[in-house]
């Protein structure tokens, strides 16, 4: 049975359409494998080879990958939620009620988005602690650490902008307090608050602004920086293998 399955897979892989998409073709050789990675738009960000040590659980606790996993869940559930949501004052909260009461699995969708967001923030911090305590931020990976810090900010901003969208009391006051904190900045505080809210109070303009930030600007910026982050792992010599292994490299 196994051989039938293998044959079937081989047939598909040898198919012209398949070959036009994945040009490397089949083969167990290192060349084939490296070509497969290099010629894939997603995978080519990563290095073709990785140290076995860096793939072990203890090396990273898979925290970076898990963070990216939650990000993917957030994108998918977020897009689905956008189908039911109007960023307008009279409609926004009503849409929450519709999600709760009439959209099939609407509560599940919202909860998945919400808990994934919480998980992502937690995982980003855990990832950074792990990197910090292992010393993986040190040269030559210092730039990627900076990118990581930018991604932390992105994550927090995504969380914050998303908080306003349900347009309930919690949201309204959180953003009121947040924007007032911004206005405490010397000299340009008031201007910052105005820019943030698109006005002087948390209202329709603020809702629209936060919606655009949450659904367009910040996610695209995050994707860009995630791409750079992944690409820099390869450029900086792969995942940090640990002190002893790194010394071994130097020798």
């Amino acid at each position, binding site marked *: 049975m196994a051989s039938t399955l293998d044959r079937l897979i081989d047939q598909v892989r040898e198919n012209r359409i398949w070959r036009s998409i994945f040009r490397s073709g089949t083969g167990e050789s290192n060349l084939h494998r490296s070509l497969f990675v290099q010629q894939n738009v997603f995978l080519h960000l990563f290095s073709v080879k990785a140290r076995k040590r860096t793939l072990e659980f203890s090396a990273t606790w898979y925290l970076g990958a898990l963070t990216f996993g939650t990000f993917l869940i957030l994108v998918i559930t977020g897009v689905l939620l956008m189908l039911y949501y109007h960023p307008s004052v009279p409609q926004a909260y009503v849409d929450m009620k519709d999600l709760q009461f*009439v959209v099939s*699995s609407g509560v599940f969708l919202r909860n998945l988005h919400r808990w994934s967001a919480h998980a992502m923030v937690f995982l980003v911090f855990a990832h950074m602690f792990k990197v910090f305590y292992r010393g993986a931020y040190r040269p030559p990976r210092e730039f990627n650490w900076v990118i990581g810090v930018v991604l932390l900010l992105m994550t927090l901003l995504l969380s914050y902008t998303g908080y306003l969208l349900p347009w309930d009391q919690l949201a309204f006051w959180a953003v009121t307090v947040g924007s007032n904190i911004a206005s405490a900045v010397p000299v340009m505080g008031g201007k910052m608050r105005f820019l943030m809210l698109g006005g002087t109070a948390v209202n329709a303009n603020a809702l629209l602004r936060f919606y655009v930030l949450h659904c367009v600007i910040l996610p695209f910026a995050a994707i860009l920086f995630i791409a750079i982050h992944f690409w820099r792992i390869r450029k900086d010599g792969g995942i940090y293998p640990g002190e002893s292994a790194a010394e071994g490299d130097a020798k």
Partner: protein
Amino acid sequence: MRNKLHALWRTFFGDSARAFGSASVILLLLLAIAPAKNHFSQWRHYQKQYLHLIRGRADAVTLERHFQGGIQQIWMPEQQVTDRCTTCHLGLKEASLADVSSVAFREHPVIPHKLTEFGCTTCHRGQGAATTVEEAHSATEQWEQPLLPAKYIEAGCGQCHLENQTGTPFLNQGRQLISNSGCTHCHTIKQADGTYIMPDDDPPSLKHIADKTTRDWVYAWIKDPQAYASTATMPNYHFSDDDARDVSAFILAQSTPLQPPLQPPLQPLKADAKAAADPAAGTTLYGQSFCASCHAMQNAAGMMVGGNVGPELTGIGTKAKPEWLQDWVANPNHYDPATMMPHYRFDAQQVATLTGFLESKTEPDFVANVHLDGATPQQIEHGKRLVVENGCASCHEINGIKKPENFAPELSRIGSKPLNQLIFVEGVEHTLPGYVAGKVRNPRAFGPSLKMPQFKFTPQQIDAVTTALLALTDRAQSQPPTMRIASVQQTKYQPAGNAGQLMRDLRCLTCHMIDGHGGDMAPDLTWEGTAVQHEWLTQFLKNPETLRPALIRRMPKFNLTDAEINTLADYMMTVYQTPEFDRDSLPVSQFGTAQVEQGRQLFYSKFACQSCHIADYKTDKGYIGPALAGTGKRFNAAWVYRWLKDPQALRPGTIEPNQHMTDDEARSLTAFLMSLKSGGAQEAMKK
């Protein structure tokens, strides 16, 4: 055991392929929870129950045809209504389900509105969008407005119906209480149509209070107003003895003497031989002047007799000083130019008689235990502070203190007040109706430092006031103006000229209504000039007699001079005319005797008018409507004719039925009625 577990672990998670497979299956199962929850939802359960119920009934086929599965909703975006109540409440429109024991499926009681045009939450509140029992009906973490308890349901009507409705007695009573108790002296209530609920309790000015009463009385009054008169509107401020002492000291101290000053009582007249010979003269005059139409008094049996337009007079002799009473009876305008009481034009003898009678109505117990020493300046100063703090000037005019603005919180949207903005205390139900009712019942229970005084309401009145307050919602304010049935605007109407001056002095509008302004105790005078003859009006003003056999009450006699009567009659005959027709358009001369006879037939046989009216005092007994024996002297034929054709057109709301007479019938009947020229009832009885 351990081995077994170990074996099990190896079977499912032994190597990476098995672990991946097992984990995937577990994840799939977990993901299946969401659609499963969706499928076993509460509303589906109710729809199944409903189907089960109707299938057992005789009209199952019809009911099943009406049934629509899935989530149902009434959606009216401009009224912000998205009500999914009908998802579970499936039998609301099914008349045959009126007897069903389960409330969920019972027919909605008959109301004048279509459910599909008004939705459910408009009146009942609750969360319309919800599809679970808990969320739809109760206050939950995300929803503060639960279903309105059934006893307050008329609050729903009051959101659109700003005027009184026959179907909402409770709401009407509550609104009446709010204005009669003077709530809006302190609390602003702006209605959705932009009008304000105006207070209607007429609190007296205190600027000359020392001329009227004593400090002892003021002290006892502010300690407990209802102890003096059970009908008193003034609420109880629960002043301590010391505070009441100081407030009374200040109230008396701020008073200035009336200008011109009060005259000493006319002692000689009081001891007049005639008055002494007839001790009942006072009672008679009190009765003849129809004082009881407006004022109540407790009779010997302890029953309250009289109207509630003016204050209760049971203990007036204890309250008012004799010289003030005399001045007031002679001309109330002197003390209070804004009073509703007419200027009766009593002669000196009558003034003395009535003053003596009223002075004898005492309640000595009321002030028996009051022993006040002279007021010190500190007490007066402290009294003034208390008067300012308690907002006394919100209701009463007081020298040196301005009426405070917005003394108490505005109540225009109290019916939608979020619970998180309210402070509850022990014993008050944690709901908005509970809070409002609690505040009305016992305001000081919410904190001894609160200023709102204690009103004397019965539990039923508390619920009525609560109903009226709960009608003041955000929805009422924000819904489209087309939904609103506006309140009747009470504007000031002032008749003009000398006659107007006279009408104000006589306070005609306290009882009569003219063009929608005034009281409802006496007939509407809007078109009186078209209706009646000058001669009759003059006679009537000279000596008013009752026009309705069933009524003892009649218009009081005002001792008017001939010149005054002429002024009034001329004015009314000229001004109060309908634009619809000319009062002289149907001259009596054109009626022949045959027509009169035909009219008599119609009166007695076809329309049987004698069941309610009297055409001839000797034979007829009808007493529902006014006596018509003097129609020929009183009315104009054109008016009678028009009245017969369509009474409601001339006086909306009259109980006279429209008989849909032909022109000929109406003409003949008019001819007959205009031939009736006998005098009034008394005159007829004498004969």
